[in-house]
């Protein structure tokens, strides 16, 4: 896949605003986020019939962690504190503009 035009500019601005910070690229960190996201997805499948609400929450966490992994792959991470999860999703709406909408990412 290719990154949407303007993503780098948005990232620079999100850093300036204190939403994101630069980190050294570490492939094992990236892999850990993606593995964790995969585990959550498997859990969601197991829970889907018995406890759909928890399965949904697991899907949400899987999306957030997968996005965090992709961010880490770009040498970035969200700055901690309030709203950090929303920043990841905000970044995701730009990075994956055509493929994802906010409702898909929303925790009900």
């Amino acid at each position, binding site marked *: 896949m290719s990154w*949407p035009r*303007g993503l780098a500019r948005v990232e620079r601005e999100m850093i300036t605003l204190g939403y994101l910070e630069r980190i050294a690229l570490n492939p094992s960190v990236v892999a850990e986020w993606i593995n964790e996201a995969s585990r959550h997805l498997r859990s969601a499948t197991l829970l889907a019939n018995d406890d759909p609400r928890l399965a949904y929450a697991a899907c949400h966490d899987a999306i957030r962690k997968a996005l965090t992994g992709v961010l880490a792959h770009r040498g970035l991470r969200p700055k901690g504190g309030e709203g950090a999860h*929303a920043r990841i*999703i905000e970044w995701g709406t*730009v990075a994956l503009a055509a493929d994802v909408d906010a409702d898909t990412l*929303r925790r009900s």
Partner: protein
Amino acid sequence: MRTSAPALAPIFRSDEQLRILAQLYTGPDEELSITQLANLADVAIGTASRETARLAEHGLVRTRQVGRMRMVSPNWELPWARELRAILVQTVGVLGLLSAGLGRVPSVEEAWVFGSWAARYDGEAGPFPRDIDLLVIGDPDRRQLNRALREVEKDLRVEVNPVVASPADWEQPTPASFLGQVRARPRARVPIGGVA
């Protein structure tokens, strides 16, 4: 940062506001996050946030809180939403960008958008078309034409499919021919050589 349509500058509050409205009212997306809107309109995130709040306050856009995120969409309930869209489409939207792009290509005499985009623009219901059918009348250099349209495609985020026809064929098409069918269906003129 882009600047757009100087002729409109006195009407809108700022170039940024104009591009934000254009993204919302003329683009393929129904609803955008503030960051996404900032990216597409090529404005700062803070500007997108402030302008959106101001526009929402006056009912020009709608906002919806999704968790901690704010989502923005056009307000089609606005009595003059369609007229606003028409102004934006002809200036900074599809027709305006095509006009600017084709204006740089010699020997383009006329241009029309036809097909599903023109039908939607004419009021026919349906989703935002994934490509734009463009009829170019004249004798432009094909490579120059294609290069100009590639540039326009980047801003529009949809494919532009050009068909070139001679002025003589366009003036007198037989009804069953391709050009005859284009004439019979909705089409929108791309302003060439005038004020965008």
